[in-house]
């Protein structure tokens, strides 16, 4: 543990929380002065590019700090040894922080999520090899409406800590009201240094809020609202209304996409329903066997 990172107090998590901790957890605290320097550097960085458009509502901007080409605007994730981009050379505090972690870094980026922006439910790493890896988040700028949802639970990644996300399970991210959420995200290979860093994962009570179940009446009302928007000609708004339910209620895996397919089926648009089922399978990286 370096001087800028501090171990978290050990927590005795309940059984449900233990399962969630496997998916997302605080790992270590980060020194406030260092965090502020990294914030200042990140706020001065360019927005980057809107990549992975199918996975988001728009408003998710990424710019690379460590990748394979050294070009900060190259945001393609891939296996192998990463090298600093020209942007990281202008961010000494961030470079020093990353170097001090002593981790085998695969890809590091800044990710900005604007107000009213969403990353739809998805799984990551499907296109990569089976090498064990993890995703680390350092929230630089956030607000209470910026949350990650997984396992029917809303998690707010608060600033001041480094977090670990296991993105191979369905998850989605939102920044409902803003202002901007800005995270430093590092994909790292699992090695001894990582295991030392991640030896005490935990969640605090305020980090987590279980989402309510969707009742039959609420489901009917929700579909009715989406149907009314579609009747008015706002099909895109109708679909987004249903996608956003993922962030407000506990749904089974793929449930938000299934709601959209159901809406289109009801309206007699079988082709659109099929398209959304295909979207679901692609974003959730479902193989033919798993469907």
């Amino acid at each position, binding site marked *: 543990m370096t001087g800028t990172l501090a171990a978290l107090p050990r927590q005795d998590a309940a059984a449900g929380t233990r399962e969630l901790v496997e998916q997302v957890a605080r790992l270590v605290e980060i020194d406030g002065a260092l965090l502020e320097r990294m914030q200042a550097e990140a706020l001065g960085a360019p927005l980057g590019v809107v990549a992975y458009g199918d996975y988001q509502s728009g408003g998710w901007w990424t710019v690379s700090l460590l990748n394979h080409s050294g070009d900060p605007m190259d945001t393609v994730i891939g296996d192998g040894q990463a090298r600093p981009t020209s942007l990281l050379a202008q961010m000494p505090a961030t470079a020093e922080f990353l170097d001090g972690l002593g981790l085998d870094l695969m890809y590091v980026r800044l990710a900005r999520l604007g*107000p009213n922006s969403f990353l739809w439910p998805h799984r990551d790493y499907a296109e990569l090899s089976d090498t064990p890896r993890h995703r680390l988040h350092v929230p630089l700028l956030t*607000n209470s409406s910026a949350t990650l949802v997984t396992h029917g639970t809303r998690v707010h990644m608060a600033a001041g800590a480094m977090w670990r996300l296991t993105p191979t399970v369905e998850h989605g991210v939102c920044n409902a*009201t803003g202002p901007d959420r800005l995270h430093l995200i590092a994909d790292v290979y699992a090695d001894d240094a990582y295991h030392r860093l991640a030896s005490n994962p935990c969640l605090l009570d305020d980090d987590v809020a279980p989402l309510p179940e969707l009742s039959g009446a609420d489901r009917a009302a929700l579909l009715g*609202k989406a149907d009314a*928007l579609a009747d*008015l*000609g*706002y099909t895109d708004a109708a679909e*987004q209304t249903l996608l*956003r339910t993922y962030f407000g209620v506990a749904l089974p895996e793929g449930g938000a996409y299934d709601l959209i397919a159901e809406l289109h089926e009801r309206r007699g648009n079988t082709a659109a329903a099929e398209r959304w089922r295909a979207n679901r399978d692609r974003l959730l990286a479902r193989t033919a066997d798993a469907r």
Partner: protein
Amino acid sequence: MTATTLAQPSPLDQIAAANRPVQLTVLDSLITALTQGGAVTHLLVRGSLATGTADRLSDVDLVIGVRDGRLAELMAHLDDLMAVQFGVLLPGWRDTIVGPLGGAGYVYLVPHADRLLQLDLYLCPASGIERLRGRVDARVLWQNPDAAITAPADRDASAETLARFADTPASCGQLLVQALVLHAMLRKRIHRGQAFIAYELLHLMHTTIRDLARTALVPHSRHHGWYHLPDEVGRTDTGRNALAQLTAALSDAPLPNADQADRVLNLALDVAGQVAPQAVAELADRIAAYRLYQQRENEAA
């Protein structure tokens, strides 16, 4: 084969594009979003954007012509549409400041580039658009070429919808939204040094606090305005406390500064917390976000 070369924008044009007012970006998005549906017949811009006097704090004033037969449907789902397409911070405030122009006004606050932009939407039945254009300066941005002549039955339906809208009293939740939107408007007018408008908005915030207490504590009151408040609202400790706080606020300066505007908002939220805690709880996340944006604006100032 002849190669064609596109003219490059001049350096001055590039600078103009880089400095494009945020209001135009939002207006552009509104046109794209609203014209997708078949219910909208006209889009007209009003106010400073139409007259070329906009500044960075200016709101976006848009008149939306709607097929008479679909007005009720669009009014019922406007909040849903605006929430999804524009991420509005709060449900629309039923605008009581805009003059009677034959339709229904809503004010939204839209997060944009770390601040809140005010968006004034005025829904007007298509049958009333020409009359509205005769009464206000408005420039047509878009018109549906298929906008048909309105059938009498549809005209009756839109009139009935608007009458119902005008007659429906505001709920505590809507009054809470009103307090927040008025506060945003008041801060802008204070910043611009517009004393008369600030005076009116401060008064409206006071009446909002009064209406919150009355709506929550005496929902079937037969009185209006400032009459019979001690007799009705003052029947309970909670009501007496709210009236005492309001009386103290009324004793403050009639031309407010930003600190006073913030104090009145705090009072509105405090009174709402006492008389209508459920309404406050339902908007808690939104109120927190509103305060965060105000904090950012204070820091930027």
